[in-house]
Structure formats: C-alpha cells, structure tokens
C-alpha cells in the first residue's frame, strides 16, 4: 500500500489479537488494502498471554509467529500500534476514520537492544502479568512482542529515569517529546476484532478475590505457568511463593450469572482441564478439586476432558463455589454444595483459581461509534453498514472458532470492497 490515506476498497481492522491478525491477513492476501489498528504497543492480544493453547497444548508462539511472518511479508497491510479509533464518519464504502496514535516515546531507530530497560531506575506494575510482578518504565511489552520495539511509560518515569534512558540509548531512539498524533484514513468497511477482557473478579464479593493472595484468576495462572511469566513458569502461591499441595478450580466464577456475565464463555472448562495439566506436570501428587455447574467440553474436546478426569488425585464436584474463606495460614477454604449428594463441602486448599469468563472489551470500554451490540456488549455484524464483528468481540469463543469468524468477517469485508 503506497497511499497512507487508503484506497477506495481498503478495510480497517480494529484490534490486533489473533482475530484481527487473521482477518487482516486473510483480506490482504487476496489483494485488499488493510489498516490494522492495535491499542496496546504490540500485536498478539490475549493469545500472547497464554502459556499453551488447548487442545494440542502448544505454546502461543506457534500460531502468532507464523501470523507475524505473514504480516511482515505483506505490503498490503499498514499496521498501527498504540492506536485507537476516535471517530468514524461517512458511510459504507466510504468511511473516514480518525485514528489517534498515543506517543510511544521510542522511535523507529530502536533496535530492541534492551539497554534502556537496564538503565531505567523506575518500576511499575506489569499489566501483561496482571500485576503479579513489576516491570521497568522503559520496557519491551513481552518476549514475543511484535513490532519488536521498546515502549516508555512516561507517567511512570522519573526525571532521573528520563535522563538515564536518554543517555543510555546509542541509537537516539528515545524521544520523550513525542506527541499524540491523529491520522485520517478512508476505508470501505470496518472489522471489529476488539477482543475481550477477563471479567473483574472483585465483582463477586462472595469470592473474596481481594482478601487473599491465594485466590487468582485462570488468566493469572496462565501467566504463572508461562516460561516468560512472573515466576518463570513455576506455579506457586502468590504472596509467599510456596509450592502448593492442593488447588481448587472455581468454574463459572461470574459466568452464566445474570448478576455478572449472563452467558457461558465456552472456554473456561477447557482452560481448567488444560491448567490441570500444568499443575500435574509440576506437582504429581497435588490434590486438584474442580467445582462446576456443568462441564462444557463439546465435540472433540470431550476426549480432552475424559483424559483428565481419569486423574486419581482430581476430584470433580458438581456445585458452584459460592463462598471462599481466606484462612490465617494463607490458604483458603472453598465452600460449595455437592448437588449430586446434597452435602455441603468446605474444602481447604492452598490456592483457588477463579475460572472467570470473557467480557467483550467494547462492553466495558464502550464503542467509539454507534455499533449494533447485544445487551452484553458483543458486536452484531451489520452488513448494510459494512461493520463486521470478528472473534471475541462477536462472541466468547476459543481460538479456533475465533479465527474462523475472522475469516468469515474478512470475506464479508472483501465483498463490500468489490461492490
């Protein structure tokens, strides 16, 4: 693409996770011009945060790396990171979109040498690891980050830190005077692949997430189990970093619940079975308790579930955990009623994992334009307006389903371009 303002048939893809990447590549590889916009400093989205995918249990680099390679090779796609959609005017076939690019404070001279991180004295909470560790104010978003360029969080940087990072950079890549930029692009259609946010566990007051370090979410466990995570892959109890001898998985934490997320996120059961594998690998004798309402592992995932249910040290209890009691020794007691026996169970465990669901990002943050959305904040595709939903912006889904819906959205967008 030579024209920065776009060509008449260009497509805007909002969100650079596995969904947005797929939609952008599918459209670009058949010859359409694509603008791919990502809010965070790097592409890869939630998938980049995973330790392994189910059901094959391969690392996310598997799928992301090949997509990044396709992205690099494709001149039809113009990528924007740290960029959000500000406004959309016009109509289908001739939208004018205003994009806002937040300052990265690191320019394209960056070689990702990492000297600035070493030199930077200022630390901040690491959002990529859900605050389980700290990172420097000058940082690479994560090991696999693409584009491979450092970022500076100016609000976390002290004046001493600013001097230090500027002085240490041999390539003159640090530019703390960088300003917010606005870009206008012309596109025929827009694909919303804005993804999801883990449901806020503090909203379930009975699960006491805030009151114990031993209560984590499934995505936190994912980061913990990841070799590039806060514990370098060791599953230990946050707070005291002790090894665990028992763990409880709390399914449907805030899901299928009209007080929270009224829908089923489809992935949490499989994620728990997958995470059982992580735990089992590190702790061959640890007791695993899974509290569930229903185990939803449809189709080929049934085999995955069956294999894990043969685990002799795993107990499955049909009953939702409705109370968690933080104990003085750092452990927690999860309370549920086993609906099959009618007995109330209070199980003390070293750690509890809340299998929280996926909330559509736009449902939390709001959409920059008027979109057709359902009551939960999922985007409903509108063919007449040439606004398409893909991946978890459309519905909560696993990676496979997400990429399929992205391909479908790409096809719809291509049709608009050729109208």
């Amino acid at each position, binding site marked *: 693409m030579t024209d920065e303002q776009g060509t008449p048939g260009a497509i805007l893809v909002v969100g650079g996770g596995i969904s947005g990447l797929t939609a952008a590549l599918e459209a670009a590889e058949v010859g359409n011009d694509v603008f791919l916009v990502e809010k965070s400093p790097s592409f890869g989205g939630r998938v980049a945060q995973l330790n392994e995918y189910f059901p094959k249990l391969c690392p996310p680099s598997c799928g992301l790396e090949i997509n990044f390679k396709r992205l690099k090779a494709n001149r039809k796609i113009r990528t924007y990171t740290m960029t959000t959609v500000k406004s959309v005017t016009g109509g289908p076939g001739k939208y004018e979109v205003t994009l806002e690019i937040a300052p990265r404070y690191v320019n394209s001279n960056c070689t990702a040498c990492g000297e600035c991180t070493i030199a930077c004295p200022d630390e901040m909470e690491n959002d990529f690891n859900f605050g389980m560790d700290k990172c420097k104010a000058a940082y690479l978003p994560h090991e696999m980050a693409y584009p491979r360029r450092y970022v500076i969080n100016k609000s976390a940087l002290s004046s001493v830190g600013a001097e230090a990072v500027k002085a240490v950079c041999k390539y003159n890549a640090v530019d703390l005077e960088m300003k917010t930029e606005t870009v206008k692009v012309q596109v025929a259609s827009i694909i919303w692949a804005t993804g999801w946010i883990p449901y806020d566990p503090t909203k379930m007051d009975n699960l006491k997430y805030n009151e114990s370090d031993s209560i984590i979410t499934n995505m936190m466990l994912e980061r913990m189990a990841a070799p590039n995570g806060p514990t370098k892959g060791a599953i230990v109890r946050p707070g005291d970093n002790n090894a665990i001898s028992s763990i409880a998985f709390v399914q449907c934490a805030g899901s299928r619940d009209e*007080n929270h997320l009224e829908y089923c996120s489809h992935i949490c059961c499989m994620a728990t079975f997958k995470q059982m594998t992580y735990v089992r690998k590190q702790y061959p004798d640890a007791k695993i308790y899974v509290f569930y309402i229903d185990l939803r592992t449809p189709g080929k995932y049934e085999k995955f579930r069956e294999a894990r249910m043969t685990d002799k040290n795993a107990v499955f209890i049909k009953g939702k955990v*409705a109370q968690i009691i933080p104990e003085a020794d750092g452990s927690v007691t999860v309370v*549920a009623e086993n609906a099959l026996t009618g007995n*109330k169970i209070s199980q003390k465990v070293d750690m509890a994992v809340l299998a929280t669901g996926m909330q559509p990002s736009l449902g939390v943050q709001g959409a920059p334009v008027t979109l057709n959305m359902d009551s939960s904040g999922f985007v409903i595709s509108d063919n007449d307006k040439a606004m398409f939903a893909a991946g978890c912006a459309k519905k909560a889904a696993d990676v496979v389903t997400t990429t399929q819906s992205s391909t479908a959205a790409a096809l719809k967008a291509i049709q608009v371009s050729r109208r």
Partner: protein
Amino acid sequence: MNVQPDLEFIKYIKGAGGDTLKKCYQCATCSVICPLSKDGKPFPRKEMIWAQWGLKDTLVTDPDIFLCHQCGDCSAYCPRGAKPGDVLGAIRAYAYTFYGWPSGLAKLATSAKNLPILIGIPALVIFVMWLLSGAMHIPTKEHFATHGYQQFFGTWGFKWYAKNIFFIVLFMVPAAGLAVLSTFMGVRKLWRSMSEKAGVNSSFRPSVMQFVTDFLWPSLVEIVKHSRFRECKVNIDRVKGHLPMMLAFIGLFIVTCWSLLKNDVLGLFWPSLHGPLSIYDPIKIMANISAVALIYGAFVLWTNRSKMESEGLSTRTFYNWFLIWEVMAVGVTGFAAEVLRWLGIPTVGYIVYFLHLVAVMMLFMYMPYTKFAHIVYRTTAMAFEKYRESPFAKN
C-alpha cells in the same frame, strides 16, 4: 428414578410467588449463601429441584422449608433469578393449606378473590351477635366516657359474668379454638411425617418435660431473640419490622390475659376494677406501647416488602400481603378506637371498634392457613431440628 410430577402442585407454586421456579439450574449457590442453612444437608437447592419435579409429599414433610426465614440472600445471589426465597415461601403457603383443617376454610384463605367472604364471615357473625345482644345502639357521650367499649354488647345484672365478655367469648373462643385445633392436628401430622422421613426411632421418646426443656424452650429463646433472622444479610431491615411486631404480640397477649383476669375474676370482688383503664395504668402503658410497636412493625414490613417488589427482588403475592394487611388492620383499628374514646366520639368509635373485632377475629380464625401459621410450624421445625440431632433421634 421414577418421578411422578404433581402438575397441580407445580402450578400452585408458580401461582403463589414461585413463578421463577423453573429457572433454577441447580448450581447450588443458594445452599452456600443461605446464612440459616446448616452444614450437613443444606437448603434450598434440593427443595428447588423437588419443587420443579412436583414432589409435593417430599416438600411438605421437609423441615427445611419452615426453617427458611425468606431472607432473600439466596435470591440476591441466584445467577438465574430463580428466587429460591420466594419459591420456598410459596411451598410454605402450600403446606399451610395442606395441613389446614377444615380444608374448605384453608383453601378459602389462599386467594384475594375470597377477601369479601373472608371479611364477611366474621363481620356477619359479630353483627348478628351485636343484634342478638340487644345492645345495638350508639351510646350517649356520657355513657361512652364512663364505659368506653365495655358495654358494646350491653350489660346485665349478673355480676359473675359480664354480658360484654360473654358475647366476645361466644365468637372469639370458637374462632381461636378452631385455629388451635387445626394447628394441633397439622403440627402432629407434620411431626410424625418428619420423624418418619428422617428415620427417627420413636421407641425412645422424650418426656413432655424433656421435650420442652431440650427442644421447645431453646427454639423459643432463639425466636424471641431473632438470632437466626439477624443472620440474614440482604433484607436485614425486615428484622427491624418483625422484632417489634413479635414483641407487640407478646405484649398484647399479656395485656389480654390481665384484662381477662381483672374483669372476669378480680372484678367480681372489686367491681370498681371494671371500666376503661387509666392512661397511666402500667398495663395500659404496656398496651399502648405494644399497639404503637405493632403498627410500626407492620409499617416497616409493609414498606420493605413494597420496596423489594418494586425492585423485582420478590413477587407480589396474596399470601405475603394478607398477614401484613391483617396485622395493620388490627393495630390501626385498635389504636383508632382508643383515640376516638379519648375524643369522646361514640358513633365513629363504635364503628371502628366493630371493625377492630372483625380484624382480631380474622387474625385468630385464619391463623393456621395464612402466613401467620409460621409461628407454629417454624417453631415446630426448629424444635424438630434440635430433636433430630439429639440422642433420642440418633439411637
């Protein structure tokens, strides 16, 4: 398992405030959230599926349906809006009709449609009594000032028994007697079926004394202290209405007993004891405080329930409202009658007093079939809960 659903029962529950029943998907959040549910076999998850399946016989003999205080904590946390609190309330409403005798009267007291008859019966009885007493006229102001309502049914020379008391006893005692008989039969049936279901060996039975000291008295203490009710979280405000109301009933019970003793026994020897009490009499003070507490309690429960219903936390049912209306009617008419006596307005006073008698008779007569029955059935279930855990039941 061969389940024979009782469709009529399910229909009844749905119509009596349990319309959300079928939304339950058995996640068991309610059983954990419930502050009153014991650790062994908690409720109300199991009651929800029994109700969905229409297992009427299992439910009416389940002590847990009576142990529920309808805090609403379960309904607030229910992920499906199945409102287990309301469903259990509807099951209780069914149980009171189920145990109620005579069944025709019990059924009559379940529907707002029957309100004209429900009010009409006592109104007619009292009106006929008034007619028969021959005292059916409005007194003069002077007479009203001296005797108040104490000669509503007239007076006669026979000093051993006042005519007024004679007539009041004539309709109030049969009304209350019917209620006592009905609840006695209901409680006996409930206790037997609960024991049978719990597999309690009845060859070792506690003596009456043991029963009272070990099971009944501790339950009554719990009730008076409201110790269970206070564990409710979501609708803790209901305690603020229920507690004064209960204490008011106890107060008014004492006042009624004293009044009976004074007029019918002591009055024989000291005729001066007849006549309205002075406002400074300790018993009168107690009566007035109780009356205020009764109206206040009913008002709190009234507003609280309206609020819950407008917020969609509870479904509006005749069962829940009938008792609040009844208590409010008793309190307001009683208090108004007194005020009218002070003001010396005999005509309105007599009409209000008549309405007061009707309200009190309704409260007595329909007690076993309405929400009021919980004072007996819940107490029974609480005593049974203690009995079930005792060595008598375990051996």
